[in-house]
């Protein structure tokens, strides 16, 4: 386990061990960069930023395409002690402008293929630097102009990402260096293999770098000497990318895990995976069981951007499938403190997390920071039960709780019951305002296949029957509607307000 306190310091130490190994590349084979070239490329880009006056603590927009250039841009900011602000290139210009108002960037790094005209006009006066290391990548490190390396600690900020937020107002989560190695240090110290990395092994991230899961995974993999493969966002087949690139480990959101399983079930060869990490929303136990039956180790990770990605983990183990079916998200890593607050009992309530990976706060937003981060504890806003088996079982988000007839109804639990009915591919509930009860529960269901009217009726009856046996009255849906789509965030979380508007009007 390294004692170096910064991501860049650890990475450059790793690079010296295997300089010829590929650090980053796209899944189409382009933008290859080896560990031994990282220092040179990072220094050169850092020198350009330095030339534009960027220094320690400055914010730098990284217009992310999730490829190698994006991660090099993050490291170049780290070289100066500047803060990389990850902005997905697909975000509408209005939102990018708002991100700019919040963070006041000193420079903008453009990944390949992005024109400056795509930026909102208010940001075009800020220095723009194109990140493109093809062509002159072979230059040794000492050719790059020298820039002063500030002395940084694990608590110094490295990156900022924006949370989608259900309130609509973006929040910039400020993440320190320690976010990106605290958990792997714990696993190494405790000799746990819940999540594991192998130097030289190919790993693939289809997740955006502007998403905590994508950024955390690739940075961790770089720190462990993995061959990090990214890109392929427009590919129609996840399994083909994994097979073609001989990927051994990957991180997925549950919707992508479902896609992978569906592709393999449909006849695509099972990729040579050793491990799949997944999280971001509730996973299908059947999907996890399918890949585990093929000998692939899985690890469900639970956490938020604010907890620096994963704080709890549910790895493959005896009984893990049954726990996933019951909405378990795992146990905390040793050294990650958790407690439940505000619930009906000590075993149920809102989960608070004190992790060495926790965020520093929301940038330029002390009010919201004070609401969420208190004495080092992050209020997840998620309602959990602490099972007798030591695992935590998610019941829903406190902000999403539907109060029906004075009873708190946890939406995730309602969804879970419907999704346990054979013939249901996905289900999500939503709130129907009601003058008498305050709210009633509506349920939207995507069937597993094409159904005629009689089959739809039978499926609805089966779902209702399941609620009669498993659910308290107020949590039973008053209406069940078959839909073709359930609106979700990028990480797979149900957007319940949009669902309610689409189904109920």
């Amino acid at each position, binding site marked *: 386990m390294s004692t170096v306190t910064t991501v860049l310091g650890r990475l450059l130490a790793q690079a010296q061990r295997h300089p010829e190994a590929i650090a980053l590349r796209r899944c189409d084979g382009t933008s290859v960069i080896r560990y031994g070239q990282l220092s040179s490329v990072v220094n050169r880009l850092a020198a350009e930023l330095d030339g534009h006056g960027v220094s320690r603590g400055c914010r730098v927009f990284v217009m992310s395409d999730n490829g190698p250039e994006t991660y090099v841009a993050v490291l170049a900011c780290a070289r100066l002690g500047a803060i990389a602000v990850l902005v997905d290139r697909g975000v509408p210009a209005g939102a990018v402008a708002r991100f700019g108002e919040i963070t006041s960037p000193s420079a903008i790094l453009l990944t390949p293929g992005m024109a400056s005209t795509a930026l909102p006009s208010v940001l075009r006066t800020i220095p723009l630097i194109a990140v493109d290391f093809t062509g002159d990548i072979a230059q040794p490190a000492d050719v790059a102009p020298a820039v002063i390396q500030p002395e940084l600690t694990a608590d110094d900020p490295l990156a900022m990402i924006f949370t989608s937020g259900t309130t609509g107002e973006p929040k910039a989560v400020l993440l320190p260096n320690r976010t990106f190695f605290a958990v792997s240090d714990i696993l190494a110290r405790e000799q746990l293999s819940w999540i594991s990395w192998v130097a030289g092994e190919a790993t693939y991230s289809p997740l955006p770098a502007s998403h905590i899961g994508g950024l955390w995974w690739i940075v961790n993999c770089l720190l462990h000497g993995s061959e990090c493969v990214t890109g392929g966002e427009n590919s129609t087949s996840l399994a083909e990318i994994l097979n073609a690139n001989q990927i051994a480990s990957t991180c997925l959101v549950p919707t992508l895990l479902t896609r992978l399983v569906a592709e393999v079930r449909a006849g695509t060869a099972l990729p040579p995976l050793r491990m799949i990490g997944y999280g971001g929303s509730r996973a299908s136990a059947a999907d996890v069981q399918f890949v585990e039956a093929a000998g692939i180790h899985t690890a469900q990770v639970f956490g938020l951007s604010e907890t620096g990605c994963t704080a709890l983990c549910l790895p493959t183990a005896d009984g893990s499938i049954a726990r996933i079916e019951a909405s378990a998200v795992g146990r905390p890593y040793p050294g990650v403190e958790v407690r439940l607050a505000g619930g009906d009992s000590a075993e149920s309530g809102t989960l608070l997390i004190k992790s060495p990976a926790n965020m520093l706060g929301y940038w330029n937003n002390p009010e919201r920071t004070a609401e969420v981060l208190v004495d080092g504890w992050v209020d997840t806003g998620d309602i959990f039960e602490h099972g007798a088996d030591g695992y935590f079982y998610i019941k829903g988000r406190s902000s999403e709780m539907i109060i029906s007839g004075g009873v708190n109804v946890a939406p995730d639990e309602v969804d879970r019951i419907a999704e346990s009915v054979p013939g249901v591919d996905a289900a999500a509930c939503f709130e129907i305002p009601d003058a008498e009860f305050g709210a009633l529960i509506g349920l939207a269901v995507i069937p597993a296949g094409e159904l005629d009217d009689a089959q739809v009726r039978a499926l609805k009856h089966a779902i*209702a029957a399941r609620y009669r046996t498993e659910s308290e*009255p107020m949590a039973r849906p*008053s209406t069940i509607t078959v839909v073709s789509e359930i609106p979700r965030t990028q990480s797979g979380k149900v957007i319940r307000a949009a669902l309610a508007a689409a189904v109920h009007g």
Partner: protein
Amino acid sequence: MAEAARERVLAAVAEVLYIDESDLFDGDATDLRELGLDSVRFVLLMKRLGVDRESDLPKRFANDLTIAGWARELEVLGGGS
């Protein structure tokens, strides 16, 4: 007339409780609570059957939670129309 009232009650109950007629294990005398009738669904059914919530009718409906009982009440109300 009686049959029309019964059909109306059965259609409403089937729709709100998501059941089929074949689920009425004791025929029209089946206690609807056994098939998931609760306070929420009772209110939904009263609305669907056009029962005046301010009258004493809901109480009468609640006294006999069966298809047969409700059909009788509807007949008394006005022929199940």
